């Protein structure tokens, strides 16, 4: 995690330390408070099964959040992740033989070929995002908004209101199967988090991602290929979203339109609640993990306590707002501590 690289051996000053670490401390604190609250309020919350449940619920969001972490670290955004996940899940179903009662004009292929073709189409969508943002210069916010619509359109065209149920075996196993009693999706998500953490922390590419996010102009004048880095993170994000979509449809057991709508907010919220700066250059996978857990615990915990189910949506919104306030405030606190 980046937290480790932050610490310096200057004379210890609590105020300054708190200011620097605000974005890391606040999410952990939130997580502890939430867990403590739900654990005391609902006996059904504090079971091992429920813990595993939280993790598996968070796993698909987690894979999307991994890609988003890269994008947000460069101070860009990708609003098309959920739509891409949906479109790619459906694309995979489109290439898989479906039961007779599913009325889709699909192209059934061998499982491996289907997976490769699906990944290729995912790459293509990512490249379109990257091209729009870097070569043409469309702000990522708008570019991915357009991509969201395009991907939703692809979903609609491919299934035409139908629902597909079968997927390549490998994907079904990874999305819905278990290993030693643990959901494969959790393992895949952890793997993504681990690899992303290693890439961000220990590779040259990762350093460039942080530097581009920290000061894009300075990165450019240092001879960093800023456009390549931005394009790369857009592609990485789309790939993560696509793979999450493939596992996601297997996890749900079906592929249909508008299936991933809630994932956009959840994934962005996980990254931001975790403390990765919306202004780029600060944060990382460690933060995203905490953010995922906060969101997972919140989503799950609210089901275990007696709350008006309509109120839950509002509560989630308020918690996200609080996280945004802390995110922006942490940046300011940091800057004022520097001067």
């Amino acid at each position, binding site marked *: 995690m980046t937290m480790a690289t932050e610490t310096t051996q200057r004379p210890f000053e609590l105020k300054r330390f708190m200011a620097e670490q605000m974005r890391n401390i606040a999410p952990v604190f939130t997580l502890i408070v939430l867990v403590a609250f739900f654990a005391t309020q609902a006996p059904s919350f504090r079971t091992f099964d429920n813990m595993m449940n939280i993790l598996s619920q968070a796993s698909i969001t987690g894979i999307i959040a991994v890609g988003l972490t890269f994008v947000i670290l460069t101070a860009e955004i990708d609003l098309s992740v959920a739509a891409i996940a949906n479109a790619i899940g459906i694309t995979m179903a489109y290439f898989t033989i479906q039961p007779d009662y599913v009325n889709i004009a699909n192209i059934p292929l061998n499982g491996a070929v289907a997976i490769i073709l699906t990944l290729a189409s995912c790459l293509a969508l990512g490249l379109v995002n990257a091209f729009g943002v870097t070569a043409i210069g469309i702000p990522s916010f708008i570019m991915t908004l357009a991509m969201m619509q395009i991907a939703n359109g692809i979903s609609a065209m491919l299934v035409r209101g139908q629902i597909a149920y079968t997927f390549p075996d490998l994907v079904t196993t990874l999305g819905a199967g278990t290993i030693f009693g643990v959901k494969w999706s959790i393992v895949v998500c952890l793997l993504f988090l681990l690899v992303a953490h290693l890439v961000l922390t220990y590779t040259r590419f990762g350093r460039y991602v942080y530097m581009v996010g920290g000061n894009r102009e*300075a990165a450019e004048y240092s001879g960093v290929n800023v456009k390549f880095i931005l394009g790369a993170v857009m592609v990485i994000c789309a790939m993560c979203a696509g793979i999450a979509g493939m596992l996601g449809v297997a996890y749900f057991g079906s592929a249909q339109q508008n299936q991933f709508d809630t994932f956009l907010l959840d994934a962005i919220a996980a990254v931001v609640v975790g403390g990765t700066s919306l202004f780029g250059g600060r944060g990382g996978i460690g933060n995203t993990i905490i953010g995922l857990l906060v969101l997972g615990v919140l989503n799950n915990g609210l089901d275990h306590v007696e709350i008006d189910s309509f109120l839950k949506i509002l509560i989630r919104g308020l918690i996200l707002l609080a996280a945004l306030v802390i995110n922006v405030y942490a940046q300011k606190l940091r800057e004022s501590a520097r001067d």
Partner: protein
Amino acid sequence: MIGVSKAFGGVHALRDVDFDLRRGEIHGLVGENGAGKSTMMKIIAGVYHGFEGEMRVNGERVEFRSPRDALAAGIGMVHQELSIVPDLTVAENVFLGVQPTAAGVVNWARMKREARKQLSTLGLEVDPAARMGSLPVGLQQLVELSRVLFSGARIIILDEPTSALSPPEVQRLFQALRRLREQGRTIVFISHFLDDVLEISDRITVFRNGHKVITDDTANFTKDSVISHMIGRGSAEMHMGESAELVGDDSKPVVLEARALDDGLMVKDVSLKLRAGEITGVYGFMGCGQVELSRLLFGKGALRRGQLLLNGKPVRLRSTAAARKAGIAYVPENRGMMLFRTEQVFKNISIAILDKINRLFLKPRREREIAEIHIKDLQIRPPRTDIALGNLSGGNQQKVALAKWLTHLPKVLILSEPTRGMDVGAKEDVIRIVKSLRDRGVAVLVLSTEPETILTLADRVTVLRRGVVAKEFTSGRLEKADLLDAA
């Protein structure tokens, strides 16, 4: 100000300083970078709060929590980086934030009238309806000054006001300052340009290492004595940058050649040859196209016409990354454009050479080793690799910016305003570094609006005027006057 101390993260920027300002005086403030003069002024202007000691205005103890508080007490500051809105009119900029309104609607006629009146008190004839961005920097600065005046400031702090100005603009500024002095206002004039300080100030205060060294009437100072107070040792008048002996040698191999570069805007048909082991200086006033020229040579900006040849072969630099790979290094004029303030020093140094020292995985230990070598070499203070760059003083940040190009020697080094806003000591360090790079065979290009910089560094000089090569000097004696004359 009595017994003021201020520390940043355990580092004392000011130690027990007493400082006073009199009504109706122009007070010069000099000192090397990091000597504490900017810190002192930012405390006075309310930018920093929380310090030891006390501050009194007209005998009354005050405590400012923000620049707004300071302004309410009649203290305003014009920073080196102007806070103007280029897309608004002059009048709107003068009244920024305090537009005169009638029934909630902006009263444009009154605003223009008042703005014109305000500007004329500074001796300026500017159309209040003109777009701010269309004015030269010197005028923009005076407009900002008039904004500070308009808000009723009696004490005005000017941070490096002359660094971007041409000589006639400096004179105009001085006239305006003298008018303000006649009105009984107090002006603090912070500058590295000792000639300017000696010309305009009534009294001068010298800072060194967070201490006040001396305050005295300007009449009792000479340039020599100011310098010796600043650097703390007796020094003969440094004949730095009054004239230079050019030693351009056409037999040296051309590394980078620009043929008729043209970006359709600021750079018109510029040809230039950079030779190995030579420093080529490009001089011109602000806005003569040199910044744009330097960008074109580093693969940034759209080249309309013209050609670049590297070692005789035509190249197209599509990006800064391509330029860096081709062996071109670049240090832009603005520190914010090349440094990562919140990142550690060693990361700032290694950024340009990451691909040389690591393949895929980073080697932070190696990065730190390299950083340590440069910190020692360039005498960067404090000598730490792991603190955030923002904690260093301006001059030291500049050295870090240079350091990142020194590990793997570039073929071509382009420096835009390498010594602007730096103190004598740091300037000398930078000059030493650049010359040693030249001696090791690097083709160096120095672009500056300061004749002194060009004259101290350059082996040959090209003068730009309005985007066009106005004159080239290859050898022989070059006087400052020749440069000013040609530009």
